[in-house]
């Protein structure tokens, strides 16, 4: 006898017949009838009319029949609330049954019947079942609390079920603990009130870790997921949790493994990265992740999506495992595509040859999406691994020769990116690309090709013809192509104005007059006006050098990545989206990776300064030619491919414009013209209030760093500049020495500063011997004031300087030692000092250690005093000298310091407190320099 026959009854009057059978006296017949009802229910027929008759069958000793009736009840109770009440009595009675299986069945089913009137009756039996002697009943009751909470959260909280549930965490049976954990996690997610009651602490975590060893695989998943939401109080606790979780990495169930990986990934954030333990953890993580790739394809898919995140967070974990991500011929397509993504992420110079060979293989496969992605991947390799770029390009050319339409198009799109990364390197292949012009029918490929033609118009003889051919169908093109065509033709015109005037007029009128697209019209108008008012400016804008594209593409934005790491193994990690993007309703707070504990931070910083103190201050770096920073804001719109992403990833570079026409002395090297592009311009001029030049205090022994080379002769076309900063008599000076190492005399010196953090600018013109004959030096002292334009620099003390002579303009950057900016009126009153110290939040406090050169507290105090760091109070606590000091910057920022000097200890401990934490590093540097001088 089989059950399939129940699926076949489709007669009319069926309900009537069933009704009769359900009321039959014969047990067997009844059961048969209930089975038919369930079968009808499964295929979607409405059998709710039979409700009373089915409920009548509930009172039975036959467990199988009872289960079927319960199944029916769960489906239809909601639509028949009044009749569902009839079942309550049986439930309550079943909860008292001597058979634990029946008690559990009753409490399990009751929770699934979402009828308000029933939930009232549920409370008492549930309370009993939570304390039942049988673990099977308790574990079922634990889940039932979550069910009840879903129906009526208030009721659960009022009736004290949360505490009962919490008690179950200490249950002797591991499965009860696991289900209680699952219920608690769900309730905490849904209700912030409950979250307070159920908050985990290190005690409960300990119990969970104990249960972890003994419960079922699913229970282990619940427990691990719950532990991943807990933030340990310090590094030690984090490490001990890791130690107890890592054995799970050897479990056969992929979910257990991934949840353990999640816990470890999260806790690793709290551990000292340089320690041995972290590197041993990293070693332990790789093998289980690789093993997941031999699981069923669906699990492989989940694993790969997660590995993609893990590799972005910690690239070292799988850096040697490239081979396992090679695509197998029979992998399902979703596994293939994910593997490809990870291969690119792991590509490096050491494995590029293998990767490239694989990709070439893939590019000949059957699945179109996969082939396209492989071609794109080759392009990404070229951009990522510079030494391999040439091989990548030749591989792409081979692929273009196959003439497979979509391969060619994809190749052209990536070649455009390669051109942008390595300008002026591979133009020789343009001819080959042009051969395939006719076959391009996808917008992105067409746009890319047009971009290439426009960009290299001067090297393509028939560029005008090619572009003209595209122009014929202008109206029918995709916007992307239209925009690109417009720009390309304007570029062509600017490069070859003589014979392309007609073409440019045509495209301008097409885009401004015949188009409905506002973007296209606007761009058309901009070009038109630029060309008609100032062709030179048009050239500057349209033909400007573009920023190079970056290596890594489509990386997940770091804060999102951190959030997703907290969701490893979950749907969020599969979608690469935060849960609130696809889960309805519930707020569910955002998960963030735990921060390193405060203590930890100082340990790290301690080690760093002790090394740097021995080194001379940072060498100067020459800022890159200002023009290379100009972003061609109008030109890059080939998205949504990689180039779009790269564009977005570029921080808004402040466009800096070079003065094109050198107008004698007026050296406006950093034109103000584009300032408004930065939005609002710098604010905060009022911060310049406290200029310290009111009290003309004599300064005799302030620290002056030795002069260093700012501009070496080879870079300065023979002019070498050394310099330093000093504060004398309340005046900041820039001490400069120019040396002429060229063969001819130099004249026409001038200096200008870029906007900087403290508004430094020359107070007078550069006064130096001119002409400066060959092999001679001249020194000067340039007074500075702090009334110039302000823009925060990174690092804070960075100063960019332009110096001109008769030969050229030179750019250099240097760092201003912060102490020259310490004002003379930086002595704070004791009381105010105390109040301010308390007032500034403790989170702003940072500690450093500084090597002591065997100074006593008094000499230290005097040395600092000479540099406007004022000791306000001195205390002696248990043999340690504590100095409390204040200083004030020219822009009114106060910094408070506490310096601890232990006679026996070779290091000082410096604690800094200020409202502006950005200055700490520079202040520390000052302390180091002054104390070592």
């Amino acid at each position, binding site marked *: 006898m089989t*059950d*399939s026959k*129940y699926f076949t009854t489709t007669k009319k009057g069926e309900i009537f017949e069933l009704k009769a059978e359900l009321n039959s006296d014969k047990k067997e017949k009844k059961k048969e009838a209930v089975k038919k009802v*369930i079968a009808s229910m*499964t295929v*979607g027929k409405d059998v709710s009319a039979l409700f009373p008759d089915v409920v009548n069958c509930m009172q039975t*000793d036959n467990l*199988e029949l009872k*289960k079927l009736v319960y199944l029916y009840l769960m489906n239809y109770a909601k639509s028949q609330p009044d009749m569902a009440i009839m079942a309550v009595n049986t439930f309550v009675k079943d909860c008292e049954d*001597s*058979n*634990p*299986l029946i008690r559990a069945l009753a409490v399990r089913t009751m929770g*699934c019947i979402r009828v308000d009137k029933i939930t009232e009756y549920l409370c008492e039996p549930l309370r009993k079942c939570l304390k039942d002697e*049988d*673990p*099977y009943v308790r574990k079922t009751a634990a889940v*039932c609390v979550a069910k009840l909470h*879903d129906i009526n959260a208030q009721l659960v909280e009022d009736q004290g079920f949360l505490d009962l549930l919490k008690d179950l965490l200490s249950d002797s049976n591991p*499965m*009860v603990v696991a*289900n209680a954990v*699952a219920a608690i996690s*769900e309730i905490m997610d849904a209700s912030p009130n409950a979250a307070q009651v159920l908050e985990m602490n290190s005690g409960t975590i300990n119990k969970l870790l104990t249960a972890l*060893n003994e419960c*079922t695989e*699913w229970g282990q998943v619940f427990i691990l*997921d719950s532990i991943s939401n807990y933030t340990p109080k310090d590094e030690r606790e984090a490490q001990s949790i890791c130690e107890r979780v890592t*054995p799970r990495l*050897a*479990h*056969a169930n*992929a*979910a257990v493994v991934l*949840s353990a990986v999640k816990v470890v990934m999260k806790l690793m954030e709290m551990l000292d990265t340089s320690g041995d333990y972290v590197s041993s953890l990293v070693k332990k993580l790789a093998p289980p992740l690789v*093993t997941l790739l*031999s699981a*069923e394809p*669906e*699990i492989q*898919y*989940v694993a790969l999506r997660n590995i993609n995140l893990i590799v972005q967070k910690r690239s070292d974990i799988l850096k040697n495992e490239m*081979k*396992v991500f*090679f695509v197998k*011929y029979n992998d399902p397509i*979703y596994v293939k*595509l994910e593997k490809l993504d990870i291969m690119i992420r792991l590509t490096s110079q050491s494995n590029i040859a*293998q990767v490239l060979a*694989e990709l070439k*293989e893939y590019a*000949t*496969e059957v699945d179109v*999406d996969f082939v396209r992605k492989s071609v794109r991947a080759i392009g990404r390799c070229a951009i990522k691994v510079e030494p391999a770029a040439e091989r990548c390009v030749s591989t792409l050319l081979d692929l273009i020769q196959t003439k497979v339409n979509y391969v060619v198009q994809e190749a052209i799109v990536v070649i455009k990116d390669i051109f942008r990364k390595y300008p002026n390197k591979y133009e020789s292949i343009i001819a080959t690309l042009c051969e395939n012009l006719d076959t391009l029918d996808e917008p992105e490929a067409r746009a890319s090709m047009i971009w290439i033609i426009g960009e290299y118009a001067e090297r393509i003889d028939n560029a005008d013809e090619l572009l003209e051919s595209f122009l014929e169908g202008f109206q029918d093109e995709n916007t992307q192509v239209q925009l690109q065509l417009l720009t390309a033709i304007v570029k062509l015109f600017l490069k070859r104005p003589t014979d392309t005037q007609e073409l440019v007029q045509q495209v301008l009128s097409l885009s401004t007059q015949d188009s409905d697209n506002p973007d296209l019209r606007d761009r058309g108008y901009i070009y038109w006006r630029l060309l008609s008012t100032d062709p030179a400016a048009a050239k500057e804008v349209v033909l400007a050098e573009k920023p190079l594209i970056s290596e890594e593409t489509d990386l997940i934005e770091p804060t999102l990545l951190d959030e997703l790491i907290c969701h490893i*193994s*979950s*749907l969020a990690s599969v979608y690469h989206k935060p849960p609130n993007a*696809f*889960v*309805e309703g519930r707020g569910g707070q955002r998960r963030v990776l735990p921060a390193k504990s405060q203590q930890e931070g100082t340990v790290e910083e301690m080690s760093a300064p002790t090394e740097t103190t021995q080194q001379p201050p940072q060498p100067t770096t020459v800022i890159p030619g200002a023009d290379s920073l100009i972003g061609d804001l109008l030109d890059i719109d080939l998205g949504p491919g990689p180039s779009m992403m790269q564009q977005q990833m570029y921080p808004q570079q402040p466009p800096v414009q070079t003065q094109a026409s050198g107008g004698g002395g007026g050296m406006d090297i950093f034109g103000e013209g584009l300032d408004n592009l930065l939005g609002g311009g710098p604010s905060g001029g009022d911060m310049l209030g406290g200029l310290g030049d009111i009290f003309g205090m004599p300064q005799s022994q302030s620290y002056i760093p030795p002069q260093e080379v700012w501009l070496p002769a080879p870079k300065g076309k023979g002019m070498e500049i050394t310099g330093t900063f000093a504060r004398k008599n309340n005046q900041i000076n820039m001490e400069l020495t120019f040396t002429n190492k060229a063969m001819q005399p130099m004249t026409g010196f001038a200096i200008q500063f870029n906007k900087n953090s403290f508004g430094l600018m020359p107070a007078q013109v550069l006064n130096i011997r001119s002409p400066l004959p060959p092999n001679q030096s001249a020194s000067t002292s340039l007074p500075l004031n702090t009334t110039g334009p302000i823009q925060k620099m990174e690092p804070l003390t960075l100063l960019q300087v332009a110096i001109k002579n008769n030969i050229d303009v030179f750019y250099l950057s240097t760092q201003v030692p912060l102490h020259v900016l310490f004002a003379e009126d930086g002595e704070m009153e004791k009381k105010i000092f105390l109040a301010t110290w308390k007032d500034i939040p403790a989170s702003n406090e940072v500690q450093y250690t500084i090597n002591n050169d065997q100074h006593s507290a008094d000499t230290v105090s005097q040395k600092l005093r000479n540099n406007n760091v004022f000791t306000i109070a001195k205390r002696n606590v248990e043999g340690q000298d504590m100095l409390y000091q204040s200083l004030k910057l020219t822009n009114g920022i106060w910094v408070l310091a506490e310096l601890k000097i232990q006679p026996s200890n070779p290091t000082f401990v410096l604690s800094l407190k200020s409202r502006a934490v950005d200055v700490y590093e520079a202040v520390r540097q000052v302390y180091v320099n002054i104390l070592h001088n």
Partner: protein
Amino acid sequence: MIGGLFIYNHKGEVLISRVYRDDIGRNAVDAFRVNVIHARQQVRSPVTNIARTSFFHIKRSNIWLAAVTKQNVNAAMVFEFLHKMTDVMAAYFGKVTEENIKNNFVLIYEILDEILDFGYPQNTDTGILKTFITQQGVKTQSKEETSQITSQVTGQIGWRREGIKYRRNELFLDVLESVNLLMSPQGQVLSAHVAGRIIMKSYLSGMPECKFGINDKVLMESKGGKSGQDDGRGTSSSGKTSIAIDDCQFHQCVKLSKFETEHSISFIPPDGEFELMRYRTTKDISLPFRIIPLVREVGRQKMEVKVVVKSNFKPSLLAQKVEVRIPTPLNTSGVQVICMKGKAKYKASENAIVWKIKRMGGMKECQLSAEIELLNTNDKRKWTRPPISMNFEVPFAPSGFKVRYLKVFEPKLNYSDHDVIKWVRYIGRSGLYETRC
């Protein structure tokens, strides 16, 4: 958590539908059918999001199993559960087919009620489930029986019941390895790994504690280090040096914390057959076979293929069920094959030449050559040569894996380790064993 679980046939008709959560409506059943089963394009992901509802699916022959949720569930767990679900069904009624599902739908509902509660997976061990989901609902159990059941379902040793007795205590260990290889046409190993499984059949009385020893480098070195006498490798009685296991996973009965701290594999086994351990190695694999392909396209209508198979193991051993599968282009019109050993046939329906060799000794070489005639087609796309694949079975473990000992302790009953009859067998099989051509 899982909000609902549906099973469909290949036409998209619902065979089983069980909803666990209120947020999943009846329309979810249809949404999956319309958007996934009946989708015009083949599905590109095992996870689909339709109107903020996520569907996880797996397919077994032509049956679709789908789990539905509206929450941020543990995706790995859902898939593990779906696979476990099919295992449970198979253990109850054999193959998961439409017919079997329809015949057992009441049973399936009963199982689903037990192994998923409010969408949370519960105990899914078939051995335990079979003790109380029997389909003989009338059977009323005694009080002792039921309490034994419940303690097993929730118990610490949820995989074994008390009071098992055998007259003869016996155990069988099968070391099953599948060798995976991807080789370039030039004979360069692109990737190779062995995925091993240890299947244990235990017929032991009581609650025996077992200790399992293998020739893993790490495990052996840690032992050798402790005693300080044995320098670990080479000197063990088996004469084989130790091997490097990349990663291993154990059945839930193995005490993982003990493995981590003491490097020992100890466990109380379930009764009957189970998979004790899975492992993976990548180093020093002795590849049993090598294929040397030579494909020459002679004009547009003819291809010549020459394939040499070399066996590379002790001459005293015999490989069985050797099969080489050489893919042919879709427009093949005829094939002439010559081989010295075994039988080779062109199978048009599979687009391949299948060459079968029943037995092949170690250190031998066989050759096949074929001429393939091609039809003229206007399909521009080049034929993408799929790799040549191979199947075989050899009576040794290609990774070098060795069982060193398996000791049984049962303190309460009066049998000792010596009384247990133990059998060990090694079988190496081909996994994905491919050579590009």
